[in-house]
């Protein structure tokens, strides 16, 4: 059961700042009524049920702790099932949450929502999709970051060792703009049902906008994007990374009109993101030797910036304009941390019965 504290209402913001319980922005005070309203969006007999547990930190996150931080972030109760799904996803072993929250690389937790709940709760998938101005986008991502700070102890100067970090660490959450047929939305690409809503989380560096405005050639557009993906100073270049390729309406349209499938887009970008070892060294990059990353060249003299074609998540999003897309590069190669996905349980759907130990993911039992 979570402790309560009674404060002078005029000083509650200052107290939260003093305690280090905020991300630097004011919060909504988590009163019992507000937290109960958040909890009412999910069906649970026990709000102290654990969503997940980090053995390396000896800390877990309960549903109630998630609700408290979601209130603070400014979430509406109908956002809470999405917050819960995101938290369940970050506890997947493949995501490697402990290191994602610790590394000097300063990763954001990218959160991508695909499915009908995204539009039902008013998420933005179009103009300014990675920017400010949408409550659901902003507060769902913020809630996950506040949980990481307050419940898992991931605070700058303590266990968050980010050398720089980036603005996405406040919040980096958005919805997929459903692609035109025959392309499939993320949830179908990943094997879920069309009527499902899924949340995919991925540890990422800052987003990079990609411009291609003077051609409608699919090859030219994607080749230039691949060149950006193999940027010599990005950590995963040549080491088998992954990431999210956000295709804007114009660029996705060029691919569709050319008859390219999403798999063909992934394959083409993967191949052209392979980087020539000599080219990489000519930029001043020193290749790792006898280390955790195998940077020995293949028979083509190149090394992969993306581990495999499937490690590029192709997502349609963004608004019409001059021709913009974006690349969300993974914070580290796939061997260290990867994306994971969970289905959102709609409001009213019971949580799975995981027994007396709570809904701890299997690998932690």
């Amino acid at each position, binding site marked *: 059961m979570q402790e309560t504290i*009674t*404060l002078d209402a005029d000083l509650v913001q200052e107290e939260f700042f003093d305690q280090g319980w905020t991300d630097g922005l004011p919060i909504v005070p988590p009163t019992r009524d507000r937290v109960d309203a958040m909890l009412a969006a999910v069906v649970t007999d026990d709000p102290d049920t654990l969503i997940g547990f980090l053995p390396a930190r*000896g800390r877990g996150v309960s549903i109630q702790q998630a609700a408290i931080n979601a209130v603070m972030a400014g979430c509406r109760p109908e956002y809470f099932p999405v917050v819960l799904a995101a938290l369940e996803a970050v506890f997947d072993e493949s995501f490697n949450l402990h290191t994602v929250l610790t*590394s000097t690389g300063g990763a954001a937790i990218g959160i991508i929502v695909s499915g009908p709940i995204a539009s039902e709760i008013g998420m933005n998938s179009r103009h300014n999709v990675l920017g400010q101005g949408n409550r659901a986008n902003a507060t769902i991502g913020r809630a996950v970051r506040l949980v990481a700070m307050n419940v*898992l102890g991931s605070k700058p100067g303590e266990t968050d060792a980010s050398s720089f970090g980036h603005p996405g660490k406040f919040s980096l959450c958005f919805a997929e703009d459903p692609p035109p047929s025959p392309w499939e939305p993320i949830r179908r690409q990943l094997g879920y049902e069309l009527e499902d809503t899924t949340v995919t989380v991925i540890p990422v560096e800052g987003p990079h906008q990609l411009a291609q405005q003077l051609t409608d050639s699919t090859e030219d557009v994607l080749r230039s994007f691949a060149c950006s993906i193999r940027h010599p100073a990005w950590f995963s270049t040549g080491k088998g990374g992954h990431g999210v390729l956000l295709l804007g309406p114009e660029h996705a349209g060029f691919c569709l009109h050319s008859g390219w499938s999403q798999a063909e887009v992934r394959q083409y970008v993967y191949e052209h993101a392979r980087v020539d070892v000599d080219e990489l060294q000519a930029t001043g990059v020193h290749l790792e030797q006898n*280390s955790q990353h195998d940077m020995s060249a293949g028979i083509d003299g190149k090394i992969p910036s993306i581990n495999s074609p499937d490690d590029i998540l192709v997502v349609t999003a963004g608004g019409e304009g001059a021709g913009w897309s974006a690349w969300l590069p993974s914070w580290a190669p796939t061997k260290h941390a990867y994306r994971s996905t969970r289905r959102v349980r709609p409001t009213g759907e019971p949580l799975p019965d995981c027994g007396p130990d709570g809904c701890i993911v299997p690998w932690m039992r």
Partner: protein
Amino acid sequence: MTEITVLRPDQADPIVSTLELARRGPLPERPVVGLISNGKPLAKEMLDALLTEIREHLDRDVDVEHLVKPSAAYVITAEQADVMAVRAHMIISGLGD
């Protein structure tokens, strides 16, 4: 003054079990030094340099038990820790870069 009652958003520090410290016995004539490399660049070089210092400090030769992690992002397994604890008289865990 208007008061407001709120729920704390944080979590108390985890309770850490009291651990028994390892025995501090005399070193054998030829002790075993465990080296755990995190796999980052230059980790091996740094650990080897420390090993040289240890040899000089102890004024005796040592045997070495090496463990190289495939990824710096993961902790060693409990089994690996147990094996290292049994075999080594002292352990150095190294950070590369």
